[in-house]
């Protein structure tokens, strides 16, 4: 027994140590070849400036875009020495919760940045300041015509303007140019297919098994894929929204009272994504595959991501990549985009309000700098100023947003609806439920949530 126990101890020790050591030794071979520069850490809380008028500013820019914003705020503080800003960067999901509890407790920040899709929710609670007077139509400094109509529509709820947009951020593709060239596919964005069948063929050419056969080859082994043409697991919600509208569907009925994602067009849109996994074998299932890691490790040829991927792509010096427009699976092009939006609590007044408005105006006037975060400046004049050499992805994807961009549905329960939809999409993309059942189940729950609003 003692010997057995000793053996048990040693075995357990080996297991514990193996896992601990394994974690520290995990490396991805493709990333080993050339060391990449370490990304700059985004400070979670940053005190900027030393002026006597102190304002607090919460946002969810925890990526490299947060670094860019802090640099911009340092520029603002230098020109406005009477103002100091404490910036808190909180991951989006936590920010949604923290903001609501802060409003209940009366400890809300003086200004915060959320997505345009959250304007209806906060506006309906009556906690936001009317910002109509900041636009030229209301006697303010921001020319209305400098913001696109689609972006502007996101700032408004019940006829009142509650937001000032910082950017347009949205969906595009990042392609591995080496893989395209190896497969004999042009990397010119203008050559991108315009049908589902065309995109499937492109993904098939880019999907390779361990023997080097692509997914069009009769000898292709779908159980042993080493290079995926595409990956469906990257934020399925926004992929689905694009495919939904491309196929002629909609999220809500025209009167906004009925969920319509499970229409014939919606089911067709989801089935297209499911087929990429289980029929054409050009994408791994959604769960258990880290899409960014996969692209960075040279295992994915086409990564559906967004404007925010620009800086990540620059860090991956061993992966040659470039932005492409979003795929087109239906009859019409469509791609999802949103807008980071400044909102001011109704309680911010006096000197603080003046400082907040000056800060927003300064950042808005310097939106060209914001392009280095990867996002597309919201002001059309700033978009026009972008250097094509420095900001090709911002320009390409920004044009797509203006031409055929679609946004999240505008309801007071949008986050809840998208969360419920996401579960349904995951169920279909992981083979748990057929597409129609997954979408019908999700739609039923979404309708209940919509009815409760």
């Amino acid at each position, binding site marked *: 027994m003692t010997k057995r*126990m000793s053996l048990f101890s040693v075995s*357990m020790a080996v297991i*514990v140590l193996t896992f601990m050591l394994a974690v520290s030794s995990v490396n991805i071979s493709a990333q080993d070849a050339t060391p990449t520069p370490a990304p700059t850490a985004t400070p979670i809380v940053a005190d900027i400036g030393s002026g006597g008028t102190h304002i607090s500013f919460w946002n969810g820019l925890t990526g490299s875009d947060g670094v860019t914003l802090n640099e911009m705020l340092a520029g603002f503080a230098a020109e406005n020495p009477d103002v100091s800003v404490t910036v808190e960067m909180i991951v989006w999901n936590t920010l949604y919760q923290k903001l609501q509890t802060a409003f209940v407790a009366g400890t809300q920040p003086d200004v915060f940045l959320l997505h345009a899709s959250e304007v209806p929710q906060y506006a309906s609670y009556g906690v936001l300041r009317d910002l109509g007077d900041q636009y030229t139509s209301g006697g303010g400094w921001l020319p209305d015509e400098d913001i696109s109509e689609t972006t502007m529509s996101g700032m408004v709820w019940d006829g009142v303007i509650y937001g000032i947009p910082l950017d347009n951020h949205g969906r595009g593709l990042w392609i591995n140019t080496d893989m395209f060239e190896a497969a004999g596919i042009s990397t010119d964005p203008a050559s991108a297919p315009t049908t589902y069948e065309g995109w499937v063929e492109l993904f098939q050419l880019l999907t390779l098994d361990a023997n080097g056969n692509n997914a069009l080859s009769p000898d292709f082994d779908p159980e042993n894929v080493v290079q995926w043409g595409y990956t469906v697991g990257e934020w399925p919600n926004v992929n689905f929204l694009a495919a939904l509208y491309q196929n002629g569907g909609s999220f809500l009925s025209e009167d906004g009272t009925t969920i319509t994602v499970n229409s014939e067009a919606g089911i067709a849109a989801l089935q297209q994504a499911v087929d990429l996994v289980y029929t054409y074998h050009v994408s*791994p*299932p959604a*769960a*258990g595959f880290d899409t960014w890691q996969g692209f960075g490790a040279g295992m994915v040829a086409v990564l559906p991501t967004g404007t925010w991927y620009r800086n990540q792509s620059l860090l991956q010096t061993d992966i040659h990549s470039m932005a492409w427009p979003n795929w087109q699976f239906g009859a019409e092009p469509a791609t999802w985009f949103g807008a980071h939006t400044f909102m001011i609590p109704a309680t911010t007044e006096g000197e603080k309000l003046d400082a907040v408005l000056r800060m927003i105006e300064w950042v808005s006037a310097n939106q060209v700098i914001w392009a280095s975060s990867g996002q597309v400046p919201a002001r059309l004049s700033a978009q026009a100023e972008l250097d094509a050499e420095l900001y090709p992805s911002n320009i390409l994807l920004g044009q797509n947003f203006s031409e055929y961009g679609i946004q999240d549905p505008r309801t007071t329960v949008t986050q809840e609806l998208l969360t419920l939809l996401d579960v349904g999409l995951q*169920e279909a993309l992981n083979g*748990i439920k057929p597409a129609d059942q997954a979408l019908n189940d999700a739609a039923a729950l979404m309708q209940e949530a919509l009815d409760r609003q």
Partner: protein
Amino acid sequence: MAENTGQRLTEPRRFALPFKLNLRTREALAAYLFLTPFLIFFAIFFVRAAFSSFELSFYDWRLLRPNRPYVGLDNYVDLFNDPIWWDSVRNTIYFAALTVFGTTSIGLLAAVAVTRPVRGQGFFRILFYVPQLMSVGAMGLIWNWLLSTQFGVINYLLSFIGIRPINWLGDPNLVIPALSMSTIWWSFGFPMLIFIAGLQSIPEHLYEAARIDGANARQIFFRITIPLLRPTILFVTVTGVISHFQVFGQPYIITAGGGPGRSSWTVIIYLYQQAWVAFRMGYGAAVAVAIAMIMAVITVFQFLLISRRVDY
């Protein structure tokens, strides 16, 4: 003969109460006096919060919505008619059963192993307990990597014996066992510590008597160690069920909030979704009350099942 100096040993003066208390009452009062700071804290932050939560469960309250209509038992009726709630309960029971069994059995075996006079006893005790010191965030990220289909070390090691990559976190049938496996690795150190204490309290003469009577190691383990550890096993399983029934961090981090789909939704994930994503605070409170009731029932059942008098 000692000289009487006229001095008397002084005793601390006692505060004279206007009424007489017996010794037992005085001791009880003293105990409560010492407990008072904790009880005040407990009353404000736990008891009051629990009652508030119970009261809240009868209202329909969106966090920022100014009105809060009374809805009676509607939240409970909705809850018990929600199939997702029952799926979450089933997932949680499955996870808790696997994990409590795993942590208890491995913790017991580890305790027996490191209680024996083996070389490096202290090293093994520390090593087995170290994972317990990690935050759930760190553990979750580590296991998210370990279980990754494409990049995971577990699949990498399995490939040496010809096993193709397993989609641990994407297969609805594997995801709960995978989460349980990670949790057992993380948390068997605590039961091990409790079992070590339990093993050390078993009188050595019982083992000596058994050996003299010719009992082998297996008989000693099952006839002496296990029966005399029953109170410890009860404690470990009760605290384990309470702890693992409230699992949240592992599915939230390792399976990105309970995926794939809702395959690893637990009752606390369900509560979180309702209260902190949908901001349905009244409904969330009803979920919390229901979870407390389920845990109370399970705990009573465990007490009835395992708690029997143990005589040494």
